[in-house]
């Protein structure tokens, strides 16, 4: 029970932060952003920590179940050696970029400029790149957090409601509405970019992060709806009918039965949306200006200049990648489930 209370509390605090953010916009942006940011961060911590605990206590079902005694394709010693050799080689190839990024980011600008020596370890560790990167990208990092957390939560909650309605309630036109909603997930966003840009300008949110939040909430709806709908389709309807006979109405069934059952679904959706929104670029580069852009855009612009010290963008890349990487490493199982929910055909 306590877990649900925590999540509700987290949602409330998070939305309060967002509200403050919005209400203070224009008057004293720094002040409002600070309070909103702190509130949002606290809210998300309150939200994420119990979720994380919950995931570790409850989520013991691995995505890939491997029967222990299944014979391998080939049991021969030599073949297995070759197998491991191949895997280790591939692993090195995949990690190669990480190596350069970390190594380069720790070099001094002068040393990083020596292109021929990119693979050498730094002669001395130079943390300055990170300090500089944090100075330069700090505000954008904060923007990214505000954007990601608020858009993730809003789109997850709306997606959950849509999923509940579409999976468990019959109403005219549902079979048409759902594919039409889904299509919104696949469209190239370039094809709605100018109207969106105009719209955001028209409601006077051009060049701010709020327009970006709106865009991410709306265009995140199809995927969150899809994941929740498929998740709820697995909940036996008999259980909801039992709830109806026990005295719950439309909202009661959602509040007392569907929502508590959908926590793993929320974890999947939140992780998915978090990485997607954090990593998104096109909307970010179009709808924001320098003060409100998220870190992906700032990073690309930082690296895009011709004469750059490469240690700085590399440190920036680490900063920009860290949050999603942490999420991936800590909650990898759910990340994979989101991937699959977003992809495998039943």
């Amino acid at each position: 029970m306590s877990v649900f209370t925590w999540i509700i509390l987290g949602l409330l605090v998070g939305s309060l932060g967002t509200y403050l953010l919005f209400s203070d916009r224009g008057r004293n942006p720094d002040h409002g952003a600070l309070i909103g940011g702190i509130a949002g961060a606290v809210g998300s911590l309150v939200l994420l920590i119990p979720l994380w605990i919950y995931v570790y206590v409850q989520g013991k079902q691995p995505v890939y179940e491997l029967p222990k005694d299944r014979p391998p394709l080939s049991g021969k010693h030599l073949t297995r050696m070759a197998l491991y050799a191949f895997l280790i080689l591939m692993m090195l190839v995949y990690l190669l970029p990480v190596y350069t990024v970390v190594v380069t980011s720790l070099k001094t600008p002068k040393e990083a400029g020596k292109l021929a020596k990119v693979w050498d370890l730094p002669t001395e560790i130079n943390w300055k790149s990170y300090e500089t990167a944090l100075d330069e990208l700090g505000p954008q990092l904060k923007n990214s957090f505000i954007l990601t957390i608020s858009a993730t939560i809003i789109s997850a909650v709306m997606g959950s409601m849509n999923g509940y309605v579409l999976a468990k309630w019959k109403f005219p036109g549902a079979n048409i509405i759902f594919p039409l909603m889904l299509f919104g997930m696949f469209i190239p966003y370039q094809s709605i970019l100018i109207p969106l840009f105009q719209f955001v300008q028209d409601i006077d949110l051009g060049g701010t992060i709020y327009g970006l939040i709106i865009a991410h909430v709306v265009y995140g709806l199809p995927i969150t709806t899809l994941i929740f709908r498929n998740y709820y389709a697995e909940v036996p309807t008999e259980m909801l009918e039992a709830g109806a006979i026990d005295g719950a109405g439309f909202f009661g069934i959602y509040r007392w039965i569907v929502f508590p059952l959908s926590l793993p679904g929320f974890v999947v959706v939140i992780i998915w949306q978090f990485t997607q929104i954090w990593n998104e670029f096109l909307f970010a580069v179009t709808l924001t200006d320098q003060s409100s852009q998220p870190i992906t855009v700032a990073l690309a612009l930082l690296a895009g200049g011709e004469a750059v010290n490469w240690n700085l963008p590399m440190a920036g890349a680490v900063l920009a990648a860290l949050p999603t990487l942490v999420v991936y490493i800590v909650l990898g199982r759910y990340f994979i489930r989101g991937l699959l929910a977003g992809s495998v055909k039943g």
Partner: protein
Amino acid sequence: MQVSANRAGNPGRKLLRFTRRINPDRVYAILMILPSVILLAIFVYGFIGQTLWWSLTDWAGLEKNAEKNYIKLDNYKTLFSDITGMRFRQELVNTFFFTLFFVGGCLILGFILAVVLDQNVKGEGLFRTVFLFPMALSFAVTGTIWRWLLNPGGGINALPKMLGADAWNYRWINNRSPYTFNWHEVPLTTTLLIIAVLLFFIFRQIWRRKYLATIYLGVPMALLFLWMWSDWVSWDDTQAMHGTFNWQDVPRYVVAVIVIGFVLYMVSLLWHGKRRAALILGIPTAVVLLWYAAGGTDNFPNVEFPEAYGFNIALVGVIIAAVWQMSGYTMAMYLAGIRGVPEELREAARVDGCSEWQVYMRIVLPMLRPITLSAAIVLGHISLKIFDLIFAMAGIDHWPVSVPGVQVYYTMFRSNKFAVGSAIAIVLLIMVASVVIPYLITSLRAEHEL
């Protein structure tokens, strides 16, 4: 994407169907979903409609109240035939090759990794994590990293020096030359072999009545064949480049793709003994052919001079970066698919006398086909609309690796040609939709049939 759910228990049954009476719960249900529906209706369909309308006007510039005159399809004509549309045409070619190699590379690499990881490997979790982690990064980060790695003066090129060899001198994305591949210098059979393999799969798909898959396989095959054919036929000693195709041939290509598609379908119909249907289908095929023979395509707006396009070598770097990022995704999909094969099924096959290898080839692999299709669609639509990777790796005006997705942004926000940008965006939308809509329809229909 997972459009259909596998439902345990009571499939399809929904709650409390009060269809004839106003029921408060039903009103709540509609009210609950209404905001999302309205938002998506405006933000997706309303905005697409607006873009479509603007693509038919001569609107230039940021002034949103500026005069917008209806100019019919002129923007599209410009793109496909005017000299100023050259960059766009090159980008279409780039997109084609990028999609082909990116999707193919991810599928093949992901599949190999999945099969290898399925062999009771120790430390499987670690390997899986490593192969999948680039998925958690943004294309912007990937682009920045690989921009650095593909720097001609260092990065990958400097790697041989670690082993004591000379540094490479490959120019990666700064390379400006197209692929000068001479079909006359290699045995023609190589190409024919690829086409033969594709044909084999196409006929197999037809035999299994998988027409959607047939079309997905048949269209690239037809394009590949045409590319080779036109280059081979039109080649003469004075021509500098090979392995390119002439943009002026596009109408011919379109006709050929339509005819090949129809003929494939006719063959399948004949195969199943549906002669009348085949005959009916034969009529439009003949009409298209006759129309073409009579010079029907001559009046098509087309470029005035031969424009040769080929595969830009600079794309190789972008493809490597993209495959590095997304191959983990196909690996995860395939691995889940392989593990999803019920152990009982494998056991049954073993009891029936299959060796472990045969269990793989005959039981597991055939069950992965739907996964391949959906992975190809997801990757395909990502690659058709790709923007951020190229933006971060090469900026928006490095034409050798540019794609329409980038061009939209460039045209809109650098050149302020909103109308032309809209036209490109609509072309992009049509490309993506032609891949996604058939897939969406078939998956949702399959779900209803459950």
